[in-house]
C-alpha cells in the first residue's frame, strides 16, 4: 500500500514539475484516503499518519511535512460530524478535493499581491530557484514592467542556473552571481524577493542555504527583504537559532539514512529570523512577521 503511495507521489512530481511538493503530497494522500480499507476512524487516522511519515522519508522538505499536517487537521475536523464511516469518508474526500483546489490557486493569489511591489526599472535580487518567485516575476513582466533580476548560483545543486534559464525564456534580463557575491551586489539592488520552504510560528522562514546571509546583508544595507509563500507552508515549529532546526529538514532524506556524522554534511536549509524580514506575501494577504503567529493561531487553535 505504502509503496503504491510513494510511486504515486513520485509520478505526480515528475508529471507536473510546476506543482509544489506539498500539493503533490496532499494529492497522494487524498488518493490514499480514497483507496483506504480501514473500518474505523482511528484506523484511518493511523494509516494516514503512517502514510505522511512514509512521504516525509521520500522527500524531506518542510513543505511536505506541513502540507501533510494541514491535511490531517482538515480531516480530523470533519470526523466529528458524521457517525457512519463511509459517509464520513465521502465527506472527507469531498472536502479534500475542495482543499486541493483552493491551494492550487494560492500561488496565483500570492503573485497577484506581490507583483505590484515591483516598480518600473527595479533591480531585484533572488536566491536559488523558486516557482512562486517565478510566478511573481512573470506577472510583473506581463504588467509591462521593466526590471533586471540578479540570481545567486545557489550551490551545491546550481539551482540558480535553472531559474536564470526560465527567466530568460520570459525575456527578463537576468544576471547570475556567485553565492559569495551577495554582499558585493547588495548596494546595486532595490529589493530582495525570496521564496520559502516553510514559514514558522515566529514569522521566520526556512529556505535554501544562503538565504540567511542574504537577509543579513539586506538588513545591513537597509533594503527591503520580501518573502513569498503559500499558506500551506506554515508549520508549527519555533526555532531559536540555526542549531534548533530539526535535522530531518536540514538534510536530504537519503543523507539522513546513510551519513555517519551529520556535522560533516552540508545542510540544505537555513533559518532566517523574523527580525530580518520586511513583509511576507501569502494567499491570506500581505503579512508582517508578527502577524504570522496570529494567522497560525487562527489556523491551528
Amino acid at each position, binding site marked *: 500500500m505504502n509503496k503504491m503511495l510513494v510511486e504515486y507521489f513520485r509520478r505526480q512530481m515528475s508529471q507536473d514539475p510546476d506543482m509544489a511538493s506539498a500539493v503533490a503530497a496532499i494529492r497522494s494522500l487524498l488518493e490514499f484516503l480514497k483507496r483506504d480499507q480501514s473500518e474505523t476512524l482511528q484506523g484511518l487516522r493511523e494509516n494516514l499518519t503512517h502514510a505522511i511519515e512514509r512521504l516525509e522519508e521520500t522527500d524531506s522538505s518542510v513543505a511536505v511535512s506541513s502540507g501533510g499536517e494541514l491535511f490531517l487537521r482538515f480531516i480530523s475536523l470533519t470526523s466529528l460530524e458524521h457517525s457512519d464511516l463511509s459517509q464520513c469518508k465521502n465527506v472527507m474526500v469531498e472536502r479534500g478535493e475542495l482543499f486541493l483546489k483552493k491551494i492550487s490557486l494560492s500561488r496565483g493569489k500570492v503573485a497577484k499581491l506581490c507583483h505590484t511591489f515591483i516598480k518600473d526599472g527595479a533591480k531585484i535580487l533572488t536566491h536559488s530557484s523558486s516557482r512562486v518567485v517565478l510566478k511573481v516575476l512573470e506577472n510583473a513582466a506581463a504588467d509591462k514592467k521593466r526590471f533586471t533580476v540578479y540570481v545567486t548560483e545557489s550551490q551545491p545543486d546550481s539551482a540558480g542556473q535553472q531559474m536564470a534559464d526560465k527567466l530568460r525564456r520570459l525575456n527578463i534580463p537576468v544576471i547570475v552571481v556567485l553565492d559569495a557575491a551577495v554582499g558585493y551586489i547588495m548596494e546595486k539592488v532595490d529589493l530582495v524577493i525570496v521564496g520559502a520552504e516553510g514559514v514558522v510560528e515566529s514569522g521566520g522562514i526556512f529556505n535554501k542555504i544562503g538565504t540567511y546571509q542574504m537577509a543579513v546583508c539586506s538588513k545591513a544595507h537597509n533594503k527591503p527583504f520580501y518573502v513569498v509563500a503559500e499558506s500551506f507552508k506554515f508549520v*508549527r515549529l*519555533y526555532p531559536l537559532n540555526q542549531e534548533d532546526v530539526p535535522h530531518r529538514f536540514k538534510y536530504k532524506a537519503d543523507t539522513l539514512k546513510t551519513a555517519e556524522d551529520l556535522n560533516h554534511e552540508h545542510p540544505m536549509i537555513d533559518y532566517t529570523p523574523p527580525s530580518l524580514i520586511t513583509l511576507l506575501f501569502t494567499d491570506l494577504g500581505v503579512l508582517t512577521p508578527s502577524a504570522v503567529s496570529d494567522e497560525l*493561531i487562527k489556523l491551528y487553535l
Partner: protein
Amino acid sequence: TKEEKQRLRKEKKHKKGKKEDKGPTEKGTDKEKKAVSSSALQQSPSSTVDKPSKSKAELKAERRARQDAERASKQGKKEPGSQASSSKSKAPASELQPVVKRLPEHIQVDDPAMVKKLAKKLERQLLQSLFIFLQIPLRSDYGFKVSLFSHLHQYSRKAPLTQQISIPATVIHPSIVRLGLQYSQGIVAGSNARSVALLHAFKQVIQDYSTPPNEELSRDLVNKLKPYISFLNQCRPLSASMGNAIKYIKKEISNIPSQCKEEEAKKKLLSCIDNYVNEKITLAAKAISECAIKKICDGDVILVYGCSSLVNHILCDAFEKQRKFRVIVVDSRPRLEGREALRRLVKRGIRCTYVLISALSYILPEVSKVFLGAHALLANGYVMSRVGTSQIALVAKAYNVPVLVCCETYKFCERVQTDSFVSNELDDPDDLIVTRRGKTQLEAWLSIQSLRLLNLVYDVTPPDFVDLVITELGMIPCTSVPVVLRVKSVDQ
C-alpha cells in the same frame, strides 16, 4: 457644598464613636481619624481613575480634607511618626493635584444644568467609595521617596501590620487579615503563590459567608469582597495575576442565578475556584514544561534569574526526563531570591553555578539559553518581571543568546506600559541597608534630607529582547499577546 461638609463631619463623628467603643490603645488613632477622612479622598482618586472628571463640589471636599490632614499633622507632632505623616499629608496633596487638573472635554461647563447633574452624580459616587474606604484604615508611607516614584506607596516592614493600622475585625474576615499580614511581611511571595493563597482565603470567606435577609448572594458577596480587596491592596499592591483571579471570581459570583439556594451556590463557587487553580496554574505548568522540554537540548547551559516557580518546575521536569544540562543561577540584592532557586535545584541533583548580577557579562559567553519567569505580560508585548530581568534580557541580546519567557495565560493583562515608572512597587528602603563587620553606613539615612533610598520591585522588558514566550497554548512570539487576549475573551 454645605451638605457635603455636613456629611463628612457626620462620618468622622461616626468613625470616632466606633473607635471609642473598641477602647483604642494604638498610638496613631488621633492621626488615624483625620488620616482616614483624608485618606478616603486620597483613595478615591485611585478609584476614580476611570472617572477622571472633577466638579466644584469635589474640589471643595478635597480642599477641606487637605486642611484636616494638615491640622492632624500639627496635632500629631509629638508622635514619632510625625515625619511620615507630614510627608504623607504632602503626598495626598500632590496626589490630588494632578487628578484635579484633569477635566473631560465633553462637559459643557457653560451649561449650569449639566454641571449640577454631574456634580450630583460624582457626589454619590464619591460617597459610595468613601463609605467603603472609611472602613479600611490607611497605611502610612515611610521615609522619603524618590521624586520620580512619588506616585507610588513605600511602606516599612519593620513593625508588623497590626501595629501600624487598626484592622476592624467586623469588617474584614480573619483569613484575609492573615493573608494581608503574610503579604506585607513577605512570607507569601511570588506571583503564583500569592494568587493561590488569595484564592484559598476567598474559599474560606465564601464558606463562612451567610446571605443577610432581603439580599441576593450574587450582589452582596461581591460588595463584601470590595473592602477585602482594598485591605489587601494596602498590605501589598495587587499583582496582575491576582487582579485577573479577582475578576474571574467576581464574574462567577455575579453569574449565580437568583433562584439558586445558598448551599448550592457556595458549593458551585468553591468548585469554580478549585477548577481555576487547577486549570490555570497546575495544569498550565504541566503543559508549559512539556513544551519547554523540547527547547532544552543535551549539553545546554541555561541561565535563570531569581526564583520563578514555573522555571524551577520546568528545569526539574527536564532533569527527570534525563536531559543533560547545567544551570547558572543569577541573583541580586536585596531579595537574594536566587538562593531559594539554587537550593531547590541542587536538591534535585542539577549542576548549578551561582553568580550575582554584576557578573552577568562575564558568564554570558558560556550560556546557550536564558529562561525567565514573568510577573505579568502586558498587552503591547512588554514583559513585567522582577527588577533586573530587563537587564539580563538586554545583555543576552547583545551576546545573541536566545531569551525564553515562561508565563501562564492567566498572567496576561490588558494594561499597556512602556516604562517601569508608571506603575511599579516600592519595597521597604531599609532592606538596602547592610551591616558589614559591625558597621552600618546608612543607619541614619532618614536624618539626611537629601538622601533617598530606592528599592524597586518590578521592571519592564521590551518585546525586542524576548525571543519566545512559552504558554500553555504553545510557543508564541512576544507580539502575539494581544491575539491570545482576544482569543481568551472570545472564549469567555
